[in-house]
């Protein structure tokens, strides 16, 4: 066990102390993980069969679908910031999360009656808005419930359960369709049931205490460390978010987001070359998810010990390796599987860790907004990246486009390390 003497407060600066505090998983985090798991089974089972349902059962084509999807991503980003702000100013994270989860749950019932393209797109839009609303308050609740020394590991637990749901959902949906051909309504009913269960766990098992109030009362879990103490009694203020650490985190997240082209494109690159990937195309995401859920907790632990920004940056090395792997002129199954594993490592090392970093760099009173800001920056940057990469895809060709992004990422990783090093210095100086 090593002790860092530069920072003994635990969780304030990035170089977290590996103090003797034993890891104790909060039941709130387990509950939120189970909420996410059931909600993801619910949403991903529908998402998996929706293209088939629209084209095969309703006899509609999907040309407008992809176009709309981009717009919803944008709407979701705006809603996310608003929901984070609303959660912070009202200090009612659970209520905002309940609204978000509830909205998505209601859309499942809507699918049972909708048959037109317009109705279905409206339902998808509502679901996206619900997702935008719930994410940041939920992550703020995780941050509030976690031990500061074990924040990334706690997020790892949540993301693992979340990814279990995202993996099980599509498989469950296809199993239903295998047993009952054209049984789309059964898929929607199963999805609704899972949505209801997730919603019930949230409503019944997750305490709706006010974070600031608890913090003010000296809540046991939040006792040591600045996470709680700086936010004690403080009302929400935008200036809390305008601190150098969060600013730099957002800059780094934006740079990386702009170079994250989306696994859909990587799957297409693999599929264009490898027979193996073509045959298993619909299941490639399962490979990525399995690597993600297996590594979410170990990499979270590593982040808590070794440094969260370090793991966040190292995760992008895995993304870089995935790009190179996809661009290499190998066509075997091994290359495809390696690529999926690397993508899983990337998600495990970055998704929960980013939320942990943003939560860590915000005050208790501005936590949901801080997390929402980081996630929005990433979402918008990735949207730009997907569009830009589409352009490169056609002008340079698949292989060259991905190599170009790989080179840019290879430059960005050391640059990000420099930005982060500056951040640490600034903190120490402060």
């Amino acid at each position: 066990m090593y002790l860092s003497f530069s920072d003994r407060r635990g969780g304030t600066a990035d170089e977290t102390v590996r103090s003797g505090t034993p890891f104790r998983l909060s039941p709130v985090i387990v509950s939120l993980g189970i909420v996410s798991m059931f909600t993801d089974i619910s949403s991903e089972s529908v998402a998996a069969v929706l293209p088939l349902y629209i084209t095969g059962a309703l006899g509609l084509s999907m040309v407008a679908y992809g176009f709309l999807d981009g717009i919803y991503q944008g709407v979701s980003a705006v809603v996310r910031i608003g929901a984070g702000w609303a959660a912070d100013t009202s200090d009612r994270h659970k209520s905002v999360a309940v609204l978000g989860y509830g909205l998505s749950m209601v859309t499942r019932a809507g699918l049972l009656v909708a048959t037109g393209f317009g109705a279905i797109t409206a339902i998808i839009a509502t679901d996206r808005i619900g997702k935008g609303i719930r994410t940041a308050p939920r992550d703020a609740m995780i941050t509030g419930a976690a031990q500061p020394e074990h924040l990334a590991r706690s997020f790892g637990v949540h993301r693992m359960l979340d990814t279990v749901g995202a993996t099980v959902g599509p498989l469950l949906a296809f199993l239903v369709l295998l047993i009952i051909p054209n049984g789309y309504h059964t898929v929607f009913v199963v999805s609704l049931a899972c949505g209801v269960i997730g919603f019930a766990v949230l409503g019944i098992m997750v305490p709706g205490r006010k974070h600031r109030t608890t913090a003010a009362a000296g809540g046991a879990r939040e006792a040591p460390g600045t996470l709680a103490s700086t936010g004690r009694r403080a009302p929400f203020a935008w200036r809390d978010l305008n601190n150098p650490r969060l600013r730099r985190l957002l800059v780094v997240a934006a740079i990386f987001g702009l170079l994250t082209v989306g696994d859909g494109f990587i799957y297409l690159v693999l599929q264009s070359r490898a027979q193996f990937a073509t045959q298993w195309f619909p299941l490639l995401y399962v490979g990525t998810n399995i690597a993600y859920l297996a590594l979410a907790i170990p990499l979270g632990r590593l982040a808590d010990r070794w440094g969260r920004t370090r793991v966040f940056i190292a995760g992008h090395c895995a993304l870089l390796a995935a790009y190179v792997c996809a661009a290499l002129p190998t066509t075997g199954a091994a290359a495809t599987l390696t690529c999926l594993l690397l993508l899983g490592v990337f998600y495990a090392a970055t998704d929960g860790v980013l939320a942990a970093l943003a939560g860590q760099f915000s005050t208790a009173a501005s936590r949901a907004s801080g997390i929402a800001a980081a996630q929005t920056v990433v979402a918008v940057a990735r949207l730009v990246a997907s569009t830009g990469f589409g352009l490169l895809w056609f002008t340079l060709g698949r292989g060259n486009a991905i190599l170009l992004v790989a080179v840019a990422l290879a430059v960005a990783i050391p640059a990000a390390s420099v930005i982060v090093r500056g951040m640490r210095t600034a903190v120490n100086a402060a």
Partner: protein
Amino acid sequence: MSARARWTWLIAITVVALAAATGYGVWSFIGYQQRQSAPAAVALDTAGTGLSGPHVVFRNTAAGAGYGHVAEVPVADPGGPRTVTDAVCDRVYSAGGTQACLRTNAGIVTTFEAAVYDSQWRQEKSWPLPGIPSRTRVSTDGKLVASTAFVTGHAYAPTSFSTATVISKVAGGDYGNLEDFTLIVDGHRLAPADRNFWGVTFGNDDNTFYATAAAGTRTWLVKGDLRARTLTSVHETAECPSLSPDGRRIAYKKNVTPGPVPHWNIAVLDLATNKETVLAETRSVDDQVEWLNDSTLLYGLPREGAVGDDDVWSIGTRAGDAPSLFIAHAWSPSVVR
């Protein structure tokens, strides 16, 4: 609430939700079994090896035995008993003795494939498709097969949606994705990032074909050249073209309501005069229309209020002609002359 009360509520809600979903699933499964074992909703002729005279090949969507199978009816008696084959296809097309079939193989691993059958419905070969089947066509001599599939990238930020359209040789090999062809719009070479191609229809020379090109919200009817690997715009706002048997006209779907919810009319373009005629079908037609003869079109429409059931309609190509039902419980018509 006490901890005990919370657990009681949670368990009660979970049990009710799971029981309701399971009950619904069992009820649908029994319903499905009954439909499968029930006699078909339409008259069937299960002789099985295909018709010899002029006939229409289509996907049978009548509930009961033979649902989803390829079926055939004589052109002279489209409402009569249908001959059902063993082939199961989402989209089907037949020409020159080659019968192309695109299908979804349901399973935990749901996959998609294209298959080629001979004139007696014996499968000759198959290859995987990257996504959901959308359109297929066969050249007049039966040597080329075109397939369009929707490719949906599964991602945490799923923004990529595209179509993959490939022209394959029945003898082996293919011309690659149409995305890799040179696109020429109004005389200029274009390479927009979001371009997509779908809905091929073949000319008679195994070199010329027509298809849809799309970029942003615009679509074009393009004329393709397989040897030169070019696609040249012919007309704007036209999707899923279909060349008439005499090669003089092209029918397509025309989006008259730009925006998120499209409405497609059927239109016919005279290639010599470039005159477009929009037909009187008021319902939105989302299909690649097929020519019954040089003056009549066939197309599928989803059956109102029935998931997974469709009808094939016919309409004359003059401006005022009214649509009429051609084959009930049918989809993806292909006329074999």
